């Protein structure tokens, strides 16, 4: 199973949307600020240009420099022609304290050289630009709160939408989770006008119908096979049994009849067991519960104890009241029967058959000769001990199959002359 953390779709979309919006807002703000800076520069340059022009004009006309001073023209001094002309014009922003409003305000200062009547003047101009900067900084001051408001609204909307728009989606999911094979009539169709959900639901319903049809076909098939096969087998067996007891039968013929009888039995069991495996595969055992095992184990031990005694085998049990498994009780019955049957069939009187449960495990062990085949073939179909020709070779395959569908773990090992089966929940 994939254990990675998951997020719901709408949250993901919202997150990506917000990241995208943030990027747009950020670059938008950057762009507007740059535009504002350019505007400020060009506006001031234009204003300083007019001032320069005015000073030049008046100096050319011989107006005394001092009379030109005012709000914007702070200083006009004569300078030597040998001064470093390349340093000019000087443009700088300075902070100036205004005592009337008790605040520092930013001013832009521009110092230029003006030549008039063969005299070089150094003209210092000044403009208060604080309001320009206020205006520029407002861009960020407005955009950041708007972005925050956008986040809040989007998240709130997201929550609302998840509740409203995704409700049909959740209900369809619920139906999917509740669906049990063979019970498609229990599905309630969810009403929705969202195209995607309608498509999803239709697909789900089609699949369910298909699954149910497959399930029912297989179920009918196994039942038909069982019926059509077992009835003739019952007849063969009965007739053979009747013949077997006939006093007219020669010994030689009796052997033949006995073989027919045995093989009919074999075929019947084979059919039943293969059918059972198919049914398990088809998921027909759905009465899964949390099963406390001690009672069932005790019952089964009681049923076979005399059988074990007749074979000179001793059964030792050590059962924990806490041991439980999540399994269909009928399937657990089969698992237990098969494991116990094996233990009794292959057990030797060298030591006891032990059945032990702890909180998590069920261990069944018996003494006996080691396997005559590879251990990993043990749970495969039609693999059986060399001394049991009549065995179906399906018992442990059945156990393995049941464990697989019930998500139980079954282990086998051979240790100190003992075959040990361990079942973990």
């Amino acid at each position, binding site marked *: 199973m994939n254990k990675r953390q998951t997020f719901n779709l709408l949250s993901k979309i919202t997150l990506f949307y917000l990241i995208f919006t943030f990027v747009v807002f950020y670059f938008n703000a950057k762009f507007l600020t740059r535009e504002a800076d350019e505007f400020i520069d060009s506006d001031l340059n234009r204003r300083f240009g007019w001032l320069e022009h005015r000073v030049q004009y008046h100096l050319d006309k011989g107006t005394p420099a001092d009379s030109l001073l005012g709000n914007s023209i702070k200083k006009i001094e004569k300078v030597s022609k040998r001064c470093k002309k390349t340093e000019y014009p000087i443009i700088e922003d300075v902070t100036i304290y205004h005592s009337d409003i008790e605040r520092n305000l930013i001013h832009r200062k521009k110092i230029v050289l003006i030549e008039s009547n063969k005299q070089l003047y150094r003209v210092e101009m000044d403009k208060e630009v604080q309001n320009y900067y206020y205006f520029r900084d407002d861009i960020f001051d407005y955009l950041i709160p708007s972005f925050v408001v956008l986040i809040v609204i989007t998240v709130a909307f997201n929550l609302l939408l998840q509740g409203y728009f995704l409700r049909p989606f959740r209900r369809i999911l619920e139906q999917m989770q509740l669906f049990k094979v063979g019970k498609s009539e229990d599905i309630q169709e969810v009403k929705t006008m969202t195209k995607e959900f309608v498509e999803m639901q239709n697909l789900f319903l089609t699949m369910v119908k298909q699954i149910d049809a497959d399930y029912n076909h297989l179920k009918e098939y196994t*039942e038909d096979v*069982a*019926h059509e*096969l*077992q*009835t003739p*087998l*019952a*007849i063969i*067996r*009965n*007739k053979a*049994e*009747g013949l*077997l*007891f006939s006093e007219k039968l020669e010994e030689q013929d*009796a052997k033949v009849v006995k073989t027919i009888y*045995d093989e*009919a*039995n*074999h075929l*019947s*069991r084979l059919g*039943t067991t293969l*059918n*059972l495996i198919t*049914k398990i595969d088809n998921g027909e055992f759905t009465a899964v519960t949390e099963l406390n095992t001690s009672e069932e184990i005790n019952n*089964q031990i009681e*049923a*076979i104890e*005399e*059988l074990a005694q*007749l*074979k000179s085998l001793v059964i030792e049990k050590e059962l924990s009241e806490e041991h439980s498994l999540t399994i269909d009780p*009928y399937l657990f019955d089969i698992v237990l*029967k098969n494991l*116990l*049957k094996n233990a*009794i*069939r292959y057990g030797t009187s060298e030591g006891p058959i032990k059945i032990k449960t702890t909180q998590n495990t069920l261990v069944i062990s018996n003494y006996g000769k080691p396997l005559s085949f590879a251990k990993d073939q043990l749970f495969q179909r039609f693999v*059986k001990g060399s001394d*049991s*020709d*009549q*065995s*179906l070779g399906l018992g442990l395959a059945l156990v393995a199959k049941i464990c697989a569908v019930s998500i139980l773990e079954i282990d086998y090992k051979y240790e100190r002359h003992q075959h040990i089966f361990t079942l973990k929940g």
Partner: protein
Amino acid sequence: MKLLLIEDNPHLTEDILKGLSDQAMTVETVGLIADAKDKISVYEYDIIVVDLGLPDGNGLEIVKLIKEINPNTGILIVTARNSIDDKVTGLDLGADDYITKPFHMAELIARVRSLFRRKKLKGSTILEHGTIKIDSTSSTVKVNDLILELTKKEYDLLLYFFYNKNKMLTKENIAEHLWGDHIDQADNFDFIYTHIKNLRKKLQKEGAGEYIKSVYGMGYKFVEA
């Protein structure tokens, strides 16, 4: 005892009739649900043996009907399907017991007779054979009026012999009756020999006659001493 057998296969019907012939029963047979319905509505039966897979429907239908018309009738369902659904539904609808195909004739006889005893005689009969008496209510066995201590399986075995007097019972048949799914053909049935030896010994110790006769290579027969 009056028994109605509802089974569509003529060969199986024939075998069952033959098997039940020496059981002091009147047996009637039908092969279709429709015919069975006619019979049930007219006559009263002690036991009805019904196969679930019939050509004109599921035998479970009949089970329901019988329970409505005559709840005292013992119902034994025969299923080849080995489907738990059928068994559970059958028992829920009021069937008293079920038997899975293929079955030994001796097994069917034992079930029918046990059912008859339970339903009609309210379980209170005492079965007798020579010097042996079985009281099935208390599951006790007396030989010459002395109580015989038997294990559960020994008791079951003796009862099985009682129900199938003078019939040959194979080792497989006995093993299957006593241990059902806990054994299969792969087992060596020699343990049956030990089982019978123990029962014989206990019976003889109390002075019962030699009722259990071994038929070499075949099985055992419960006979008059």
